């Protein structure tokens, strides 16, 4: 027994050393591995670890709403879903395909075609579908088909407000109109942040904000939805009734310079822009130029009055209704004899206006046109606002000075014309226009003497009385002042014989002007084409409704207006 014990105790000493060595080696290996992981591969491992719980979230910015002056929505972004697929993952049975096609309202063959597009690992089946349709698609549970939330812009006003508001593209960024002009404020900024999510996908901790996001701000326009609707309706029916190619109308608040309504016809539906033509899209009021014709005469006369060369009662000889300057003859539609300056405007005599203009220095005329805003684009922040054409006075020939007196040889936009008329409505002050709600009276820029502006205002009131060119512009209850215009259209550098642009610009109530309205119809071809017959009734209709909507006090007796059988025909 003792021998056996002895044998056990006496193990060879190397065995213990081997064990020690093995253990030591194992620890050394662990240590090295730890060193390798902790020191050398630490970044990679930390990244992998974080990927298990940390997520970067994109925060899309919601586009701001566009509202009218009383807060009615004119453009709102609302979420829709887009259905997309990974073609290689999609397994479709015939039945599923038919269901999908029915839900998305597209032929089954088109789904096949989209899925079969070679070399694509991401394809949109349909963008911007209604949320309930998207839910139904999700309920089919087809592998490889997913959906994604997007925003779609809706325009409840449809064609009524289309030209002012414009529209956005499929990615919700502005492409036309106010949507484009105010893209910065409306669009906002998409943000992103890193968060920690738990097992159930709930966010438990905000780690960092990578980019601070911001939703787009709402934009309140100066537009009054009711007046806009009224204006569009009146313009549209006039364009149809007179078989005109197009028309434009703008309503300006004299005190604040706010644009209360701006309508164009033909229009388009911004919610469905499948078949759009350039003609429908153009905002004629702001971007199109035309020769204004007689609506420019008041400026010539105002300048003559201001310079003291004439008074409203100065006689101007206009017979025999023609005047020849350097091979060019100016005509009056209805030749009259000697007319006072006030009658020249009332009867809209071209010869009279030309004679008055020729007594004025070229530079002064050019200067006044510049000061009332012709030749420079209005600072409206609207894409494509036209500046118009006003040549430097140094290049004017006498005949050009004469024709410019009655609005030929110069081109303006309807908006410029409306703005220029604020000079008469505000005792000589030109008011800057704005599409965004201001809510406060705007400071004007004095460009004409108060006396001259008031004298022209009185003449403009005469021009809509019986015996003037625009009696159909009158309305019951309010005094109106304004001027008709009928201009031959320019085509390929010369004037077309039977194509006209009919216009009317005026304001009311004449005792304390509140609104300026400018109306223009392009190529009325149903017989009538004089501004007094085509454009003036539209003016009257919109002015009457707008003044009533705004609750402007009456300044004329409420008596039915007698319409004369024959109204004076203007010359241009």
């Amino acid at each position, binding site marked *: 027994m003792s021998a056996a014990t002895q044998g056990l105790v006496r193990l060879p000493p190397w065995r213990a050393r081997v064990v020690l060595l093995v253990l030591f080696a194992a620890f050394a290996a662990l240590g090295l591995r730890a060193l390798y992981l902790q020191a050398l591969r630490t970044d990679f491992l930390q990244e992998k670890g974080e990927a298990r719980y940390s997520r970067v979230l994109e925060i899309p910015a919601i586009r701001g709403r566009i509202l009218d002056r009383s807060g009615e*929505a004119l453009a709102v972004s609302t979420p829709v879903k887009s259905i997309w697929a990974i073609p290689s993952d999609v397994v479709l049975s015939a039945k599923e395909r038919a269901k999908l096609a029915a839900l998305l309202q597209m032929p089954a063959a088109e789904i096949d075609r989209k899925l079969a597009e070679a070399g694509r690992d991401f394809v949109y089946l349909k963008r911007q579908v209604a949320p309930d349709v998207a839910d139904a698609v999700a309920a089919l549970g087809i592998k490889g088909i997913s959906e994604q939330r997007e925003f779609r812009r809706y325009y409840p006003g449809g064609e009524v407000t289309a030209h002012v508001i414009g529209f956005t593209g499929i990615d919700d960024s502005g492409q036309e109109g106010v949507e484009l002009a105010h893209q910065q404020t409306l669009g906002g900024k998409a943000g992103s942040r890193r968060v920690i999510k738990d097992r159930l996908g*709930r966010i*438990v901790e905000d780690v960092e904000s990578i980019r601070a996001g911001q939703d787009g701000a709402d934009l309140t326009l100066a537009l009054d939805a009711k007046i806009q609707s009224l204006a569009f309706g009146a313009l549209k029916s006039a364009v149809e009734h007179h078989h005109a190619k197009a028309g434009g109308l703008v309503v300006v608040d004299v005190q604040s310079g706010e644009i209360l309504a701006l309508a164009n016809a033909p229009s388009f539906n911004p919610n469905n822009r499948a078949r759009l033509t350039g003609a429908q899209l153009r905002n004629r009021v702001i971007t199109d130029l035309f020769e204004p014709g007689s609506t420019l005469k008041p400026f010539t006369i105002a300048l003559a009055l201001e310079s003291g060369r004439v008074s409203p009662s100065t006689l101007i000889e206009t017979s025999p209704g023609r005047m020849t300057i350097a091979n060019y003859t100016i005509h009056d539609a209805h030749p009259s004899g000697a007319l006072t300056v006030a009658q020249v405007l009332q009867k809209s005599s071209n010869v009279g206006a030309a004679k008055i203009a020729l007594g004025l220095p070229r530079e002064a005329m050019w200067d006044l046109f510049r000061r009332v805003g012709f030749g420079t684009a209005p600072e409206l922040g609207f894409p494509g606002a036209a500046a118009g054409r006003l040549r430097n006075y140094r290049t004017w020939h006498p005949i050009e000075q004469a024709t410019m007196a009655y609005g030929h040889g110069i081109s303006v936009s309807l908006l410029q014309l409306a703005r220029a008329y604020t000079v008469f409505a505000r005792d000589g002050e030109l008011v800057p226009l704005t599409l965004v709600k201001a809510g406060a009276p705007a400071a004007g820029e004095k460009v004409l003497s108060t006396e001259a502006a008031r004298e022209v205002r009185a003449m403009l009131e005469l021009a809509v009385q019986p015996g003037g060119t625009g009696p159909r512009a009158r309305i019951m209850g309010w005094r109106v002042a304004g001027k008709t215009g009928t201009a031959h259209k320019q085509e390929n550098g010369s004037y077309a014989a039977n194509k006209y642009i009919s216009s009317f610009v005026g304001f009311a109530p004449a005792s304390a002007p509140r609104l300026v309205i400018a109306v223009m119809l392009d190529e009325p071809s149903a017989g009538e084409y004089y501004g007094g017959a085509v454009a003036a009734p539209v003016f009257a209709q919109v002015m009457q409704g707008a003044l009533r909507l705004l609750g402007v006090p009456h300044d004329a007796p409420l008596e039915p207006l007698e319409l004369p059988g024959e109204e004076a025909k203007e010359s241009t």
Partner: protein
Amino acid sequence: MAKLNLLLLAVLVACALGLVTSQHRSRKLFSDFEREQARARELDIEYGRLQLEASTWGLHQRVEKIARSALGLRAPDPRRVRIVPAIVPPEPAR
């Protein structure tokens, strides 16, 4: 000495538990906060949708059409309309 150590150990354990609980509470609160924020966003979107709906129903042309055809309303003769100023001056208090 041993007693002090034990006491410190107990304090340490208590602190550790406290930290765990407060961390948990903070995460829970944060997730609630997130949920409410998401709800606020959804409500804002819903508000936009309702605004859109209201605008569509209240479209001027639609109202006018219904007023004219279904209800047989018409604009009164201007002679029968009297316009009163919107702001009535306050009567002197006496």
